[in-house]
């Protein structure tokens, strides 16, 4: 195959994994309370800012001893996930739970309001400019340096890092939802909150736990964003969030495997559009895909797990 094509696929896959992490947050929340959580992208943005701040505080930078760096990155990952999870569940408590029985558009509008609040918190915290972060994870090509292959396709430590953080989280989440008691409660609540309540499931607690998981995933994605793309900015959450939401819709909203697949497909679409068309059209193409999917196949690629909820 064409090496350029392969490279585009590598970039698309690793970007897609980050989209998948955020998309899971959208799909979990939509699956359980049918709310497009507009604020989710901004929780991700705040997570990336927090991770960046922590990494700088701990002195992680280019040339830090690899073992120390890995230990500190794991620590930062844990803190960021804990903080964004708390933030997300607080948002649920303050902005969405009181509106549980309001008309359907009320929580959506509340979510938009929350999104603006979080964006501006980021703006006040870090200012309007793009914030850069040095390369901690080296951009060395594993294929040529480690495996000794003769190729111009680059799979770097960064690509590896995106996969190493993302894939275990996806596996743990799938296991949690499919196998644990709490996961069963989540699926039951998603299917029918009233009946789930009748069966003795604490609906409010289950929803709160869903928000905790979604927030933690957004925090993890924030750290990956900082280390992988080396930048964050206050309005990152809007663009990135819409991409992630598109991924969720693409895969079939409410469907966890679908969100991952959608993330990867969207990552590839983005990469191909960047490479072969022009970056300035990428957004239009993403939204075009979103509109096309919603109009022609609203259940997404894998279909919704929940019948007729859109």
């Amino acid at each position, binding site marked *: 195959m064409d090496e350029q094509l392969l490279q585009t696929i590598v970039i698309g896959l690793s970007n897609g994994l980050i989209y998948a992490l955020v998309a899971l947050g959208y799909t979990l929340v939509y699956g359980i309370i049918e*709310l*497009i959580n507009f604020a989710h992208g901004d929780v991700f943005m705040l997570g990336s800012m927090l991770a960046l701040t922590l990494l700088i505080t701990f002195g992680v930078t280019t040339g830090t001893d690899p073992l120390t760096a890995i230990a500190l990155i794991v620590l930062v990952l844990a803190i960021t996930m804990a903080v964004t999870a708390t933030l997300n569940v607080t948002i649920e408590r*303050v*902005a969405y739970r*009181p*509106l*549980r*029985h*309001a*008309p*359907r*558009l*009320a*929580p*959506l*509008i*509340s979510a*938009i*309001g*929350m*999104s*603006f*609040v979080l*964006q*501006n*918190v980021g*703006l*006040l915290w870090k200012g309007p400019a793009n914030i850069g972060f040095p390369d901690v994870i080296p951009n060395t090509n594993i294929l040529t340096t480690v495996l000794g292959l003769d190729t111009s396709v680059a799979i770097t430590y960064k690509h590896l890092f995106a996969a190493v953080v993302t894939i275990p989280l996806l596996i743990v989440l799938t296991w949690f939802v499919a196998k644990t*008691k*709490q996961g*069963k*409660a989540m699926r039951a609540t998603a299917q029918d*909150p*009233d*009946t789930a*309540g*009748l*069966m*003795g*499931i*604490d*609906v*409010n*607690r289950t929803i709160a736990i869903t928000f905790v998981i979604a927030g933690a995933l957004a925090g993890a994605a924030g750290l990956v964003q900082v280390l992988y793309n080396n930048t964050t900015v206050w309005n990152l959450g*809007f663009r990135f969030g*819409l991409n992630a*939401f598109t991924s969720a*819709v693409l895969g079939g909203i409410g469907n966890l495997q679908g969100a991952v697949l959608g993330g990867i497909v969207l990552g590839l679409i983005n990469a191909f559009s960047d490479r072969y068309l022009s970056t*300035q*059209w990428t*957004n*239009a193409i993403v*939204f*075009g895909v*979103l*509109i096309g999917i*919603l*109009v022609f196949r*609203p259940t997404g690629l894998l279909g919704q797990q929940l019948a007729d909820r*859109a």
Partner: protein
Amino acid sequence: MSSLITPVEHGRTGGLPAWLAHLASSAANWPTAYRARLQERPRRTVLLSALVVLVFAYPLLNRAVLQPFSRNVFPLPAPDDTTVVFMLIFATMAIGLNIVIGFAGLLDLGYVAFYALGAYSAAYLASPHWSGVSILLFSDLPAGFPGIHLPFFIIFWAAALVAALFGALLGAPTLRLRGDYLAIVTLGFGEIVPVFFKNLVNVHFSFGPIQLVNANLTGGPLGINPIDAPELFGIKFGVIHGFNAVYLALAVVAMSIVIARNLERSRMGRAWMAIREDETAAEMMGVNTVRTKLLAFGLGASFAGFAGAMQASYQGATTSDFFMFATSILVVIMIILGGIGNIWGVILGAITVQYVDKTLLGWVGNRLKDTGVAIGSPQLGEINPSQFSFLLLGLALVLMMRFRPEGLLPSRQRAAELHAAPPDQALGSAAVMEIEEEVIEEAEPEDVDATTDPPPEPGAASGPPDTPGRPGGVT
């Protein structure tokens, strides 16, 4: 003033011509109708008349009294002419979006697309952009002057028509989506349109007879300028004639109010509200939901076309940067804040939000600066309240949804809906509680966490009014 125009009772009999005839006869009967109204409801009529007079005197008052007065004495600053014009432009948009969201209940998060389409339509028809041609109509420009230069009263309607057409075009495939999916599709549309206006600058395109080589279709990031200032009867209304422009914008808002009020009370308006309440029920009652929603979308969009034409002609320039997602949300905030479903409410919302955003926050910043200097801590002046505007608006949205979802000046019907607990909620939750206790007793511990969890709050599991029916079936 719209209270003087009695609504058309049956929209079906005659359509647009009948409506125009009705407007004409209302206008002709104006003095008689006013006298009758004065006798019927004297207080309301006098108050409304006073309000109308005040509104039309306001720009004069503003310039002659309020601005100098506020600079020195009055505690609150008076807005300048440009801010007033934009208050009114946004009021026009709020009236239009209120038709889509407030009347028909379709959440449109990409309304800015129609604003952009209106503005660019106006720009195309009244600027030197198409420098290869020279089409002049009622223009005092010299013959052969490059570009298309049509008079304002034509481009104004053309912009509305273009916006309405695109509204229908977007609506046709998407309106069968429900609720939040529609919101996302419109959001996507609102993002795509400005991208097109920004990027279609060096277009190479060849399809059959159409050959474009390096064509500049939209002016790219620079946008289009200069755009001719609006001119009616030899009077100009551009940004350098701010004072005149306020009156033009007032006239546009007044016209929008009349149209929207008549639409609200027409057969179509009742169909919109029926769809908002319950789409399935409306369809059962014989409402053609697709056509009705399309009309809401298209008609709502046409108001953004008016607003776009005003923006482009008034400012004499337009660029894609005017048309961000934030602008769509700004109009939504105006509607929610003012009172969704109520025309007067959304106008109040538009004026309030625009005033706070453009005038009040800047003024607060200046006061902080003065205070900082006076008390010897100049860092107080470095706080710039204007940069908090979206933070405040976001908070306002969250708080309004929580505590007063019907807005400052609600429509009575909407307020009742938004506050109505499901009619038999008390009964419902009692029934749920009973069932729950039984379930908890019987539940297998390994099935779910039932035994360790406290039972849900009564309100949590009660849900829609049909809940009591289901437990009945279970027991």
